[in-house]
């Protein structure tokens, strides 16, 4: 891979990916694959399924079916959005959606990502902020947000699971996200 590619911004790399440059794709992959795999694994709790999700997402990116539009946020946010959607699709196709959590225990230890660069250290700090913001929410709000975002459950599935009216579930999601926005402030703005 050309050293100069590493100096390009993600948005510029995406222009080269659109032209069919595998080396540019590889650079984008290296920058974002760990975050993508982390999210996919957090959602699926299964290594094979997470790999499948990440592969599907990145090949979709490569094949230009998922078109990047820089007006809609960073490449990282966009990539993770694709991964999230693919993981939800995968979870909702799975007949064992609500029983999948026990598999692959201990993967975190085996595959924990080392922190090698300033950017990765910054991301660790970002992760702490996000987790702290979630922890400050009332449990009933953080729970519905986590079940929806990381569990891939719909509001009606969550309502059934928690034996709570659908309107209440929606309200908790909205309130919780609103509070997180106040907590995260600048971090949320940087994500766009």
């Amino acid at each position, binding site marked *: 891979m050309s050293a100069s590619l590493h100096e390009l911004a993600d948005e510029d790399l995406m222009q080269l990916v659109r032209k*069919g*440059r*595998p080396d540019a794709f*590889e650079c984008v*992959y*290296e920058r974002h*694959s*760990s975050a993508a*795999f*982390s*999210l996919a694994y*957090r959602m699926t709790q299964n290594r*094979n*399924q997470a*790999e*499948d999700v*990440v*592969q599907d997402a*990145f*090949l979709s990116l*490569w*094949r230009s*079916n998922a078109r990047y539009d820089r007006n809609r*946020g960073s490449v990282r*946010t966009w990539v993770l959005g694709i*991964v*999230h*959607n693919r993981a*939800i699709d*995968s979870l*909702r*196709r799975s007949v064992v959606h609500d029983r999948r959590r026990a598999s692959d225990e201990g993967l975190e230890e085996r*595959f*924990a*990502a080392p922190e090698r660069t300033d950017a990765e250290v910054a*991301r660790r700090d*970002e*992760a702490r*902020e*996000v987790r702290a913001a979630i922890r400050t929410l009332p449990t009933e709000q953080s729970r519905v947000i986590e079940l*929806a*975002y*990381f569990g*891939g459950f*719909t*509001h009606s599935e969550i309502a059934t699971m928690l034996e709570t009216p659908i309107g209440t*579930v*929606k*309200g908790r*999601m*909205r*309130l*919780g*996200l*609103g509070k997180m*926005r106040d907590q*995260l402030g600048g971090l*949320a703005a940087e*994500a*766009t």
Partner: protein
Amino acid sequence: MSSPCRHGEDAGAYVLNALEDDEARAYAAHLETCAPCREEVAALQVVVDTLPAGAPRLSAPPELKRRIMAVVEAEAELLRASGPEADRVPAPVAAKRGRLGRLSGRPGRALALACTILVVGGVAGVAIEHGRDGGPSTRTVQAAVTGQGRAALELTGSRAALKVDGVPSLPEGRVYQVWFVKPGRSTPEPTHTLFNVRRDGRATVAIEESVKGVKQVLVTAEPDGGSRQPTSAPVISATAA
């Protein structure tokens, strides 16, 4: 920040992708005409965009990169070989992948690629005739494989068998599916032949359907149970006629 609109209560569930499909479509349509809801969705979306950072940080497995880059390099090579025409097929937009057995929405580039692979398969295919005592002869055609492994199609009269070696096994919930391409048809026809490979990447698969009148045989990776149209680019292609 909160939208005063009565539909505003859906904003949180919408950005979390937690509405049912029909509700999500209806709310997206509502957003076209409701500025307060658009504003709230935009405000909440930036929070949702930070949530991936809350997942425990893991390294992507090195073998995953090898698999993805093998496909990317192979496709880049095929696209280079086919020239700019390969990029002219518009890729359709699909909001969501479908459920099992339904087209999950990205055939455009995949089919363009399939056509490209067909050309390469046609060029690369090597036919070897095996005479049999009095019976129909068996012809072996080497198939083009995108990524790892080798494959060959054995044709005996109107029957065919696919032999693969070193092809990656698929994760749970995925299966290889055989497709037929017939002359004058741009869309591959599905077959009922689904398979996976052994741990060593080998499999011998008798194709259930007759290959009479079939121009190309393709293999794609699909969700369990197969699909009605390919949902991924072919990994194997062989010239049958």
